[in-house]
C-alpha cells in the first residue's frame, strides 16, 4: 500500500524523521509539518539524510509552518515541495495509508 508519512518533530531533537526515512519504502511520500519543518532546511546536520533519501521518497513541507518559524523558502533543500493545507489534504487522499511519526 502506498504510504504518506507525516513528521511533526524537529529532527535535531527527536529521531522521528530519521526513523520515518528508514522505514519508508520506494514510492512513499513524507510530509514535514509543525516542528518537523526544520528538517527541510539546508545546511543542518540532518540535511544530508534527507537529500540521500530523495531518490526513493517524495518530500513535502508545510508552507504555513515554515513561515511561522521564519524559514525562507530559499533555504529549503532542493527537491522538497512546499504545500499548503489543501495540498496536505490532497496528499492524504492520494496515498492509501497515512502514518504519523509523533
Amino acid at each position, binding site marked *: 500500500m502506498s504510504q504518506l508519512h507525516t513528521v511533526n*518533530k524537529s529532527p535535531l*531533537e527527536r529521531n522521528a524523521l530519521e526513523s520515518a526515512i528508514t522505514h519508508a519504502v520506494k514510492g512513499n511520500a513524507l510530509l514535514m509539518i509543525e516542528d518537523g519543518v526544520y528538517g527541510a*532546511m539546508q545546511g543542518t546536520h540532518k540535511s544530508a539524510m534527507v537529500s540521500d533519501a530523495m531518490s526513493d521518497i517524495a518530500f513535502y513541507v508545510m508552507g504555513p509552518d515554515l513561515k511561522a*518559524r521564519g524559514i525562507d523558502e530559499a533555504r529549503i533543500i532542493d527537491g522538497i515541495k512546499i504545500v499548503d493545507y489543501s495540498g496536505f489534504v490532497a496528499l492524504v487522499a492520494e496515498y492509501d495509508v497515512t502514518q504519523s511519526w509523533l
Partner: protein
Amino acid sequence: MSETKKFLYVNRKAPYGTIYALEALEVVLIGAAFEQDVSLAFLDDGVYQITKGQDTKDLGMKNFSPTYKALGDYDVNKIYVEQESLDARGLTLDDLLPLTWEDEDDDWAEKDSIKVISATEMAKIMEQSDVVFSF
C-alpha cells in the same frame, strides 16, 4: 535588600510545536520584577526561538518573537546562544533577532545582548548559576 542571586533560564525547545518557549518567556518577564541577576541561555532547538522573520498569521497563533526584543527593557541583557547548536542547524548570528538593551548609565547607548559562546563556556555559565530554570 536581599542578596542578589544568579538566575539562569535555559531554553531548549523550538517555539511553536510545544508551549515551553512561550511559558519560559512569560516566566522570565514575571521574574524580572524581582530584580535578580538574570541570564538566558539558548541551546539545542531553543535557538529557533529567536530567529528572524517569524510570521504565524497563517497558523492563527500568536507570534511572540517580537517580545524577546523587549527583554532589554526588563534589564535582561545577558543572552547566551550556543555556537554548536547554531552550527548543527545551519544558522549564524545573522539569522537571529538583533536583541539589544539601552545602557542608562552610558547615555542610553544601544548594546548587544546576545553573546554566542561554545558549549564549554555554556557549561561554565550553568555551573556558576545559583538558580536554573530549564525549559
